[in-house]
């Protein structure tokens, strides 16, 4: 049964066969063979290509497995760090001085905003934005790392509810809650705490702080910097599976963050506030330290500044204002203020002379109001024009006689003086737990040749003898040196850290005294007694001691030494004389109670005038406040 189509087909073929006089049988066989050959070639080509492909697939899937597997994981797995809450900072009595507060920001998710100009226009309708704020918003738009844009920082719920009335204009805005560092007494504790700020490249490279994944803020200065690694805790993370569009599909793994440990400082906040109140309109520094263990009870550098400004992102304007402030609030005077110690150095010069056997308690120098040095035209004047008459060491300290110390330092010589002053901690770091401590300056022959290309002149030794000239010391160095007198040479590294509390276990970890890097002077007890007693006379021998007019504190006796540094300020030399700049620095070193010292207080008031009139009363009040409140401190502590 043949269909019509087949019949047609056969007929057609026959026609063609006739047309080409083509031997069908032979040609059909040949065509079949030719096709078979081509099919065989095709088969070989197909198999060849098949194996080429399989080799390539093997390369990708089997040889490349590790490589591509890693890539596949990094494609889908995103690790989102969970920053740890920062540890709090307390004073020695458990009063909080640095904490974390929740703040509300007005934010908007970048992805929701398509037209920036339109957004800004609408935003200005409901929120008053000045040109700076607008610029800041545009800046945030450009910052690719930011996902959210902060329109207003730190708003109250009231403010938010006012804004949300008009929310229909800008439905994209929302309230962002974040944690912010807050300092309870920003000015008074500024130079102790320092501040935190955004992690910078230099922080990441720094060896003293450890940065973690996801860490946003880091201690920049002060305790916040020094104990960053304790306060920071440990960031956790969330291992998330995301799709190609960044949407989170599920959480694969989470590691909780560990809150930073709390830190208790040696500072007594009340004492700190008490002193800061007295100092805030002055420039200078007050340090109160327990000489028996190096605990710093108060650490004031005035003026302070608002460290809370830094925890919000401080504006360039505010920052410049702080930097350009003539009172230089950003300088930590307690460790970076380098002052001539003036007469407060005299006890140490006396001790060196006694120790070296150059003088003894019976050595008298007659003071006629001035000292004549051989080959020196100008006589060296004593502060008391009419002179002190014959003075021994004790009297010379009590009366702060300059001529006595001119003579003694001439006898001792600069080499022995400079060499021995290092033993009291001058000219080197005290290793207080703050970074960037200044070392002051102990000048000697080598120093002068190197830095001024001049030989040492004998007259300069005399100036060093009364704590003037090139000699410079920081308040913390003076405090430590004074402590060495108060405790008869037994000194401790000054520190602000009292203990930390583990955020997990609640265990306290107390301050561990490191090896004292401060070389205790090997002072003879008899020599020490002389100076000790002389310093008692300074504050107690009525009419004789330079600070004997101080009001008594009950039955507690203070020992001390006044100092008045003559300051030749650069401004004055240029003729831009201003009364204040020409005024001397007032200094006072002290410890109390005399018999069994518990507190060393150093006071420096820049351009404060006389040490006895300006500095000594502050030290006295500090000691009084400390002594009066000590008992409650102890009971609180238990």
């Amino acid at each position, binding site marked *: 049964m043949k269909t019509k189509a087949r019949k047609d087909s056969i007929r057609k073929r026959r026609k063609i066969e006739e047309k080409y006089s083509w031997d069908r049988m032979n040609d059909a066989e040949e*065509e079949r063979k030719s096709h078979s050959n081509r*099919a065989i070639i095709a*088969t070989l080509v*197909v198999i060849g290509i098949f194996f080429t492909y399989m080799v390539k697939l093997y390369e*990708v*899937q089997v040889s*490349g497995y590790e490589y591509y597997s890693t890539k596949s994981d990094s494609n889908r797995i995103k690790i989102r760090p969970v920053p740890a809450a920062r540890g709090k900072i307390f004073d020695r009595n458990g009063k909080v001085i640095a904490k974390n507060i929740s703040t509300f920001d007005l934010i908007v998710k970048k992805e929701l905003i398509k037209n920036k100009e339109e957004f800004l226009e609408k935003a200005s309708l409901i929120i008053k934005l000045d040109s700076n704020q607008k610029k800041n918003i545009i800046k945030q738009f450009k910052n690719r790392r930011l996902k959210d844009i902060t329109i207003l920082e730190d708003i109250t719920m009231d403010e938010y509810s006012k804004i949300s009335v008009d929310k229909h204009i800008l439905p994209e805005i929302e309230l962002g809650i974040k944690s912010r560092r807050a300092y309870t007494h920003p000015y008074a504790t500024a130079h102790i705490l320092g501040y935190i700020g955004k992690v910078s490249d230099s922080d990441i490279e720094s060896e003293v702080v450890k940065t973690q994944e996801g860490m946003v803020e880091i201690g920049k200065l002060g305790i916040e910097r020094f104990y960053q690694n304790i306060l920071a805790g440990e960031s956790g993370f969330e291992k998330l599976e995301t799709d190609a569009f960044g949407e989170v599909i599920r959480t694969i793994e989470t590691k909780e963050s560990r809150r930073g440990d709390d830190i208790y400082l040696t500072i007594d906040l009340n004492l700190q506030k008490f002193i800061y109140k007295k100092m805030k309109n002055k420039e200078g520094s007050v340090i109160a330290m327990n000489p028996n263990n190096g605990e710093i009870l108060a650490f004031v550098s005035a003026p302070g500044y608002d460290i809370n400004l830094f925890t919000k992102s401080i504006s360039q304007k505010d920052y410049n204002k702080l930097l350009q402030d003539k009172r230089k609030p950003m300088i930590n005077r307690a460790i970076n203020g380098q002052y001539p110690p003036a007469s407060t150095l005299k006890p140490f010069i006396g001790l060196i002379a006694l120790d070296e056997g150059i003088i003894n308690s019976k050595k008298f120098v007659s003071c006629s109001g001035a000292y004549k040095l051989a080959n020196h035209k100008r006589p060296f004047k004593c502060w008391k024009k009419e002179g002190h008459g014959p003075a021994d060491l004790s009297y010379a300290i009590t009366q702060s006689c300059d001529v006595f110390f001119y003579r003694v330092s001439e006898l001792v010589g600069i080499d022995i003086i400079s060499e021995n002053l290092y033993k009291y901690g001058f000219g080197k770091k005290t290793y207080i737990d703050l970074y960037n401590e200044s070392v002051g300056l102990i000048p000697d022959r080598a120093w002068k040749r190197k830095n001024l290309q001049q030989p040492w002149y004998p007259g300069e030794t005399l100036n060093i003898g009364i704590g003037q000239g090139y000699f410079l010391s920081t308040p913390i160095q003076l405090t430590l040196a004074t402590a060495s007198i108060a405790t008869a040479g037994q000194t401790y590294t000054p520190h602000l850290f009292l203990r930390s509390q583990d955020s997990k276990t609640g265990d306290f970890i107390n301050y561990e005294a490191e090896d004292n890097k401060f070389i205790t002077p090997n002072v003879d007890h008899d020599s020490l007694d002389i100076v000790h007693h002389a310093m008692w006379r300074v504050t107690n021998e009525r009419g004789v001691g330079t600070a004997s007019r101080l009001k008594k504190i009950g039955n507690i006796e203070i020992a001390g030494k006044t100092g008045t540094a003559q300051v030749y300020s650069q401004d004055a030399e240029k003729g831009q004389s201003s009364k204040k700049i020409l005024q001397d620095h007032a200094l006072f070193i002290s410890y109390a109670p005399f018999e069994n010292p518990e507190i060393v207080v150093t006071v420096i008031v820049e351009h404060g005038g006389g040490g006895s009139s300006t500095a000594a009363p502050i030290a006295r009040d500090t000691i009084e406040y400390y002594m009066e409140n000590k008992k409650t401190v102890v009971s609180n502590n238990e």
Partner: protein
Amino acid sequence: MSEYIRDGVKPFSGLSSLLHIDTKLFIAIIIITIFGLTTIYSSSGGDLSLVIKQFTRVTIGIVTMIFIAQVHPDNLKLFSPILYVFTLVLLILVLFFGVGNTADRWLDLYFIKFQPSELMKIFVPLMVAYYYSNKPLPPKTKYLFVSIIIVLTPVLMIIKQPDLGTALLIGMSGAIAILLAGISLKFFIGSTVGGFLLAPVLWMNMHDYQKERVLTFFNPESDPMGSGYHLMQSKIALGSGGFFGKGLFNGTQSKLGFVPEHSTDFIFTAFGEEFGFLGVILLMTLYLFIALRGLSISVKATDNFGRILSGTLSLTIFLYVLVNVGMVIGFLPVVGAPLPFMSYGGTSMVTLFATFGMIMSVKSHQRILRK
């Protein structure tokens, strides 16, 4: 008619011969479609509606295949010119009334939307086979030129759409048909070289996105989020599958959207990610088997039409596999070419089954020569 004893229905060959179905080919195809359905289900994240849609198409395809397998090759031959010219007209209509996103490839007939270019994938080999069926082989130069025109006319129209990928595939299937018809290899190589010389002309007439694809092919890492992104992600997916694969439903690259078009053009990637190299070996071997089985059918065919048709079609299917897989492993530029029997899509699925209907028709209707 003395040389023909009867139509090639063997005794006792059961249902498959009754339906004119080649069981071996059919089983291979069914396994591949099952792979395809599974991969679509998995990489779409368990979207059963896609699977049902695709299954419907497979069913329509099988019905079409069985239907075409019943048609005697001589009748296929008879209809060849009509089908070819009809589809050419459709292509012309597409140029004027076509719809589509980036290129107007679709013809919207209100009740059905399809790509006439897909039909050409079958009808060009069919037409070439028809044309050579009553000519002495190897063909004379005159006939060769006619056949080249038969191939190039639809190719140029499809390039115009523009759909370079399909155009090239059809062009190549036409070339295979001409090659199988028996033109001298010398001539074939010569024209291939000529084709390469024409490449710059082609380049000048290419659309920007097409140029970009070709450029990306040569340097995929240059633009990881752009066109090269597809290829990179595709390789990552395949590579991360490893030897045993990530397992069903665990293909993160495809499921999470890193591999684009994971149900259509890049379904091989999704399959390779979940089933690993082992699965890939199996799948590729099935394709190889289909191609070789098709060739063997063509060798056994009793006339030139059957030989050229079944040979060309089976080689063309394999070519599609090579183009698609070559694309996902970076052998070839990213062109929109579906993976036969796997990729999600209606026209291509039905066309492919129709193709095999023809091959089976050739096989089951072969006339056995009397010795």
